[in-house]
Every structure is written in C-alpha cells, then in structure tokens.
C-alpha cells in the first residue's frame, strides 16, 4: 500500500480575520488526477497555495510526501511542479534563457522532453518573454512546471488562455504524466469538459468548504435528475428524499437528488405512486445544480 503524496486534515485559512477556507480534508494518492472545481472566490487558489506551503495554515495542516508542507525540505520541493494562474516569467529573458534559469535548480531536468514539447507546442525559444502572447506565456509556464518530471504537479487554471489545439496538447501531456502511475496531478479549471476527461477524483469547493469530494464516476452516478410522472396530481406534501431542488407541476415533478443509488428507483416509485425516470447529468450540469 502506497502512502498518499498529499494528506490534509481540517485545513483552514483566514486572511486578516476573514475565513477563506475552512475544515478541508483530503488525500492524493500516487496516480491520482484531481480536478478542483469552484466558483471564483471559492478558495481554490488558497487551497493549492496551502498544499504548496506558500502560506501557513490557520488551522489544521497539509502533509506533502510525509512532511509538513510549510516546512518542506529541499529534496521534497524538487518533487513538486507548479504552474501558477498568473505566470512568474521574467520579461527580459528569452524563452530559452528562462528555461535555463529554472533548469539550473533541478539536477533531474529533462532537456529532451522540454525541447520536444517546445517544438510540438510551437514555443519560439528565441523570443523574449515580454513579446509573447498570453497563450505562449502560458505554454512556457507549463513547460517549466513539467521539465523536472515532478511527482506531484499542481496547476492553477492552466489552460484559460490556450486555444483548443493547445489545450488538447496539454491534456495529452497530463495523460502521459498520469499514465506513469506513480505521479499525481492536481489542477483547478473552469473548463469543465477538460476536468471531465482527465480527473479521476473531483473536489468541489463551495462557500470556503469542501462541498463534495470523491471518485468522479461515483459523482456522476450519485447526483441525478429524477423525473416523476403520476396519473393523479401530486400532493403538496410531495417530497423526494435527499432532493436538493424539487419542482412540482401538477402530475409531474423533477428533482436533483444527492446520494442516488440505482436500486432505490423501484422502491421510491412505489412510495411516490409515480413513474420515475433517472436522468444522468454532465459535470457542468452537476456543478450548476449544486450552485443554485
């Protein structure tokens, strides 16, 4: 049994008395690809920064490779890759020099990989950072996060400025990392369809808390839209257990249900005296329904 790469317990953070994250716990195992979802301001960036040890936790803590992430030894730091939301590139440098500066920190730097990807991703190594488009800067920033082949790769909105072709190339690279089986990726993204393809675990942050976390497949199976159709008008008192949201309209009703299991259908249909249809939702629909 492998021990988890990342383990957080009761993690909380306040900035000048304002709570931005409260009581968050999770683990990331080798091979996991975690998609972090949440509205703007839900605490995604703070969460990632706590994992990286950029800022101390106000309560609880995070362990990274078994060390307190805020007091991480150098050797453990070398096993992390990070792509920030806002790149930290140096405007005066050319792409090649920027790569050289970062590479000098890592004995395990993979020149071959970075060279190949910069060609495939069409990153002009001779161009100065200040003359690059936002998309080019983002690609370069991702290259810098990948070059030392980190065991844990953390990306904060890595694809916001990429075109669909570049996004697919990026996805393929993440798949390569995940296919290794011993490396993990944690990424936040508003591009729900990318999360849908890549993530095996989902964290949904809402109101500074971990609102839902777990296996992605079980998320899609456990949150569904139920359609009920009865022959007689449904009573006022009509209720569906675990429903987030019930809309009743004469003989029909729809509801978003949490904690759904397929074997509940027959029982519930009998109980309600209605015909039930289960509609499975896309991740985007689930996300929207949870934020109504």
């Amino acid at each position, binding site marked *: 049994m492998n021990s988890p790469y990342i383990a957080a317990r009761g993690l909380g953070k306040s900035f000048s008395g304002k709570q931005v994250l409260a009581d968050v716990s999770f683990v990331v195992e080798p091979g996991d690809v975690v998609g972090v979802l949440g509205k703007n301001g839900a605490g995604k960036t703070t969460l990632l920064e706590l994992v990286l040890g950029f800022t101390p936790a106000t309560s609880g803590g995070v362990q990274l490779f078994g060390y307190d992430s805020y007091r991480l030894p150098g050797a453990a730091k070398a096993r992390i890759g990070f792509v920030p939301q806002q790149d930290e590139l140096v405007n005066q440098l050319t792409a090649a020099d920027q790569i050289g500066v970062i590479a000098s920190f890592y004995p395990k730097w993979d020149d071959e990989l970075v060279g190949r990807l910069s060609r495939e991703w069409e990153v002009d190594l001779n161009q100065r950072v200040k003359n690059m488009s936002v998309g080019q800067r983002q690609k370069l920033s991702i290259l810098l996060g990948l070059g030392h082949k980190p065991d844990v790769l953390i990306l904060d909105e890595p694809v916001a400025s990429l075109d669909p072709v570049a996004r697919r190339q990026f996805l*393929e690279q993440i798949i390569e990392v995940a296919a290794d089986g011993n490396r993990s990726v944690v990424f936040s993204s508003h591009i729900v369809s990318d999360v849908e393809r890549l993530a*095996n675990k989902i964290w949904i942050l809402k109101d500074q808390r971990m609102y839902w976390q777990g296996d992605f497949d079980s998320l899609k199976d456990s949150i569904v839209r139920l359609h009920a159709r009865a022959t007689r008008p449904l009573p006022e008192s009509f209720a569906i257990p675990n429903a987030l949201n019930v809309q009743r309209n004469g003989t029909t009703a729809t509801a978003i249900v949490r904690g759904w299991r397929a074997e509940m259908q027959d029982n519930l249909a009998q109980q309600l005296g209605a015909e039930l249809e289960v509609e*499975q939702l896309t991740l985007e629909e689930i996300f929207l329904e949870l934020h109504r």
Partner: protein
Amino acid sequence: MHYFTNAHGRRFRLFILKPHSGVPIYRQLLEQVRRMAASGHLPPGTELPSIRELALKHAINPMTVSKVYTLLEAEGVLERNRGKPMTVATPKRAQSPVAKRLEQLEPHVEQVALAARQLELTEQDVVKALHDSWENTDEQPVHRRTRPR
C-alpha cells in the same frame, strides 16, 4: 481515425466515448467492449490497445481505461497476458465441460420436472414442450421458428 485490427484481420473503429455525457466514461467503455466481444465484433484473441494508447487517443484518464480492463478481466471478457496486450478471452462457457454446465442447469430442470408432475403431464409432453421452446430460443434462422402452442 482510430482503428484496430481484430483476430480475423479486419479493421475496426475504436470506441466512441463521449466524456461530456451523463454516463461515466468508464461505463461507456465497459459496455462497448462487452458488447463488441459478445457480438463477435471482437472475436477471442483480438488485441486491445494499451492503456496509455487508448487514454491518449481519447484524451481520457489512463486510470479509467485501467479500471475498465480490470473489471472486464474479472468478468472473463478480457485476458491479461504478461508483457503483451490484453486480448479478448474465449468465452468461459465454451471451455467448461458439458457436465459442469449441466450442473448449472439442474435447478431449472428440477423446477420443470416438479411443475410438470403437479400438472400431471407426461415425460413426452415435457420433452415436446422443451423441444419447441428450444427451437424458439434459437438465435439464428428466423424461418425455423415454430409458434408456441
């Protein structure tokens, strides 16, 4: 287009996966492999793409593919071969001897025999009924079907 070749040397399109659907990707893949194996589209011995290959082609998480292959192996649909690609397995039923398969049928036969006695039917009546039923459940030529009495 993504194709792979089955044991008869015919080329097939790879699976059609829609990540942006309510059905989890693993279930889409699971059902497609299961169906294609059952229908003979993927005859026993057909090599499946590697986990990495399939994950890259569809831009999906390799763990999803790995999970499906493991589940299908447990079901006996696929076979793992050391250092070689996974292959479609020979259906288990065909491998087990007649006696073993008859054993599985026994409780059903017992039920029929018991019911037939309670209905005071003769052995011949039952054999005849079974024969008709047998013809009816034959999957292949439709014209040979007889109507149930």
